[in-house]
C-alpha cells in the first residue's frame, strides 16, 4: 500500500484468521493486522513508560522485545484456549482481547484499586492470564490448565509465555517436566536472550525469529498440527535482529507499507492512545 489511501484492516479489527495448520501462502491481511498490533504495542509501551516516569502508572510494565512473538501466538488462539504470562506480557492480552483500555486501567490502578492482587491482567472468558505474582508461577498454572484439557479430552490449548528470567526458576523445570510427563496440552513460547533449555527437557522445538509475530503465529499453527495435544516449545529468543523487523520488511517488499502510511498509522495510534488515556483518567 502506498500513498495516502488505506487498505490495512483497521486498528484491532481482527481479520478472518486462517484455519490452523493451513499455511496457504502469504496472508497479507494477517501480516498487516499483526504489524498494526505491534506498532500499537510499541506506542503503548512508550506511553506506559512516560506515565510510570510521571508516577501515574505502575512501573515495570515495559513489554520489551518478547512482545512480538507473544502477539503472534495470541492472535492465533481459538476461543477455548488460554494464554498465560506475566504482567509484562500485556501485549498478548491486548491481542487476545482486542483492546488496550482495561490494560491501561490496571496500569493506572483505576480498575477497582481497593482490591488486593492488583496488577494481574486476567480474563477467563477472554482467555488470558497475565499475572503479577511470583516469578514463573504462571508456567505451572499453564501446565495445570493443559493437564486439565488433556484429562477431559478438550481441544483447548494452554500457551505459556516465558523468558530467560523464568528459565532460571525451579518451578519452570518442574512445569516443563510435568508437561511432558502428563502430555499436557501446552505450547511454551520462549523469548529472551539466547540460552539453553532444550537440553533440560526433551521437547519438540520450533525456532522462529523473535521479531516476527507472523512467524510466531504460523509456528503455533504448526505446533497444533504436527503434535496435537503434546507439549511444544516455540523458540523465539532474540539475538541480533535486523533494525527493521521481519514483518515490516515483508510488508514493504509487497508494497503494503510506505513511509507515508507508517506515519499515518503512527498518528492514528497516538490519537487512539490519547482517547484511551482520557477514558481511563476520567474513570
Amino acid at each position, binding site marked *: 500500500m502506498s500513498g495516502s489511501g488505506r487498505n490495512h484492516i483497521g486498528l484491532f479489527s481482527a481479520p478472518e484468521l486462517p484455519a490452523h495448520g493451513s499455511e496457504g501462502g502469504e496472508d497479507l491481511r494477517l501480516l498487516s493486522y499483526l504489524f498494526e498490533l505491534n506498532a500499537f504495542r510499541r506506542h503503548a509501551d512508550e506511553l506506559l513508560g512516560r506515565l510510570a516516569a510521571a508516577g501515574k502508572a505502575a512501573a515495570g510494565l515495559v513489554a520489551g522485545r518478547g512482545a512480538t512473538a507473544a502477539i503472534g501466538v495470541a492472535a492465533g488462539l481459538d476461543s477455548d484456549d488460554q494464554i498465560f504470562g506475566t504482567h509484562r506480557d500485556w501485549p498478548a492480552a491486548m491481542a487476545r482481547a482486542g483492546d488496550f483500555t482495561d490494560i491501561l486501567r490496571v496500569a493506572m490502578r483505576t480498575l477497582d484499586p481497593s482490591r488486593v492482587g492488583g496488577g494481574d491482567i486476567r480474563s477467563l472468558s477472554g482467555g488470558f492470564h497475565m499475572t503479577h505474582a511470583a516469578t514463573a508461577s504462571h508456567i505451572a498454572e499453564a501446565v495445570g490448565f493443559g493437564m486439565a484439557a488433556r484429562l477431559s479430552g478438550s481441544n483447548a490449548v494452554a500457551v505459556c509465555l516465558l523468558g530467560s528470567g523464568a528459565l532460571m526458576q525451579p518451578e519452570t523445570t518442574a*512445569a516443563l517436566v510435568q508437561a511432558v510427563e502428563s502430555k499436557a496440552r501446552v505450547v511454551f513460547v520462549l523469548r529472551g536472550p539466547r540460552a539453553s533449555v532444550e537440553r533440560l527437557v526433551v521437547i519438540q522445538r520450533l525456532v522462529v525469529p523473535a521479531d516476527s509475530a507472523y512467524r510466531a503465529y504460523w509456528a503455533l499453527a504448526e505446533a497444533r498440527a504436527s503434535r496435537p495435544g503434546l507439549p511444544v516449545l516455540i523458540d523465539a529468543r532474540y539475538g541480533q535482529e535486523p533494525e527493521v523487523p521481519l514483518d515490516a520488511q515483508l510488508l514493504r517488499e509487497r508494497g503494503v507499507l510506505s513511509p507515508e502510511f507508517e506515519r499515518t498509522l503512527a498518528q492514528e495510534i497516538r490519537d487512539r492512545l490519547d482517547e484511551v488515556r482520557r477514558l481511563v483518567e476520567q474513570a
Partner: protein
Amino acid sequence: MLQVEAIRAAITRVLTERRDAVVIGSDVALHGGPYRATGGLLAEFGPDRVLDLPRNASAIFGFARGLALAGRDVICEVAPEDALRAATSLARDAERWLGQQGTFVEATYGRRPSDAPPAHAPPGAIVLRIPAFRGSDLESTMASIPGATVFSPARPADAYAAICAGVAKPGTVTVVLEHENLYRGHDDDTSFLGAGDDVGEVAPPLAWRQVRPGRDGTVVTWGFGVIEAAQAAEVLAAEGYAIGVIDLVQLSSLSTDALRRAAETTGRVVVAASTGAGFGAELAYALTRAAFLSLEAPVVVVATERDGPGALVAAMRAAADY
C-alpha cells in the same frame, strides 16, 4: 478415628462425589503421601484423579490454579519442608489468585464468543494441604493471605469439615495446616462422616471452640497447641487452678469472638504459639485490641515448640497469679 483417617475420608468423599475433583502433590499417588493421608486413592480412583507431581510447592500450587481454571476442584498436598521454602511465593500467588477476582479484566469486545459466560472467578476450588507442619510458623505467612481461609484443625472432625467445605466453594483457596503430631490423634466421634447429603453441604468447622472452661486464665491456641494446653491445664488443675483452653480452629479470617470470650471470662490470657513471633504476636495484638478493657493482665505469648510445654505451664501459672 485417627485424624489421618478423617483426612483420607474427606478426600475420598470429594473424589467420589465430585467427578472432576483431583488430588495432586508429590508422592500422593504411588506412595499415598508421607503420612498416608492419600493411601489407596490411586488404586480406587486411577491416575487421572490422583497425580504425582514434581516436588516443588509453588509449582504444585500453580498446577492447582491451572486445573481450577479449567473447572477442576483440586486438593493439593505440598511437602512441609518445601512449603517452608516456597511460603512467600505461595502466599503471593494465592493473594494474586484471590485478589484477581475483583480485578478480572472482562473484555466485552474483540473476538470473544458472544455466548461466553461471564467469569469473575475460577470455577474450581483449591484446598492446599500442608502436612507435617510444625514449628516453622507457616501460619503467619498463610494467615496473612487476604481472602484465603486458613484452618489448623486439632480434631479429626475439623480436618474433615475443612477439606469438604473448602472444595464446595468455587474460586477460593482453603489452606489446611496439619500438624504431624496430630495425624495419629484419636477421637471416638465419627458422626461427622455422614454430614450433609452432598460434600457441598458439609458445614465448615466452627471458627473456634471452648475445649475446657476456665476461671483463673485462658489459653488461646490452635493445632497441636490444643493438646499441649489441655495437658498443661491438667497439671495446673492439680494445683487448684482452673485454666480454660480455646481452640482457634480457623486462623484466617480470625474470630474476634473467640478472643473476646477468652478475655471476658477470665481476664488473663496466654497465647500458646509454635514460635514466639509471627502469628502468636499478631494474635496478642488482636486480642488486646478486641478486649483491652476486659484484660486484667498483659497478654503473654509462649513459644511451645521452642521453649517446651514447661514454659506454657509456668506462663499460665504466672498469668493466673498476676
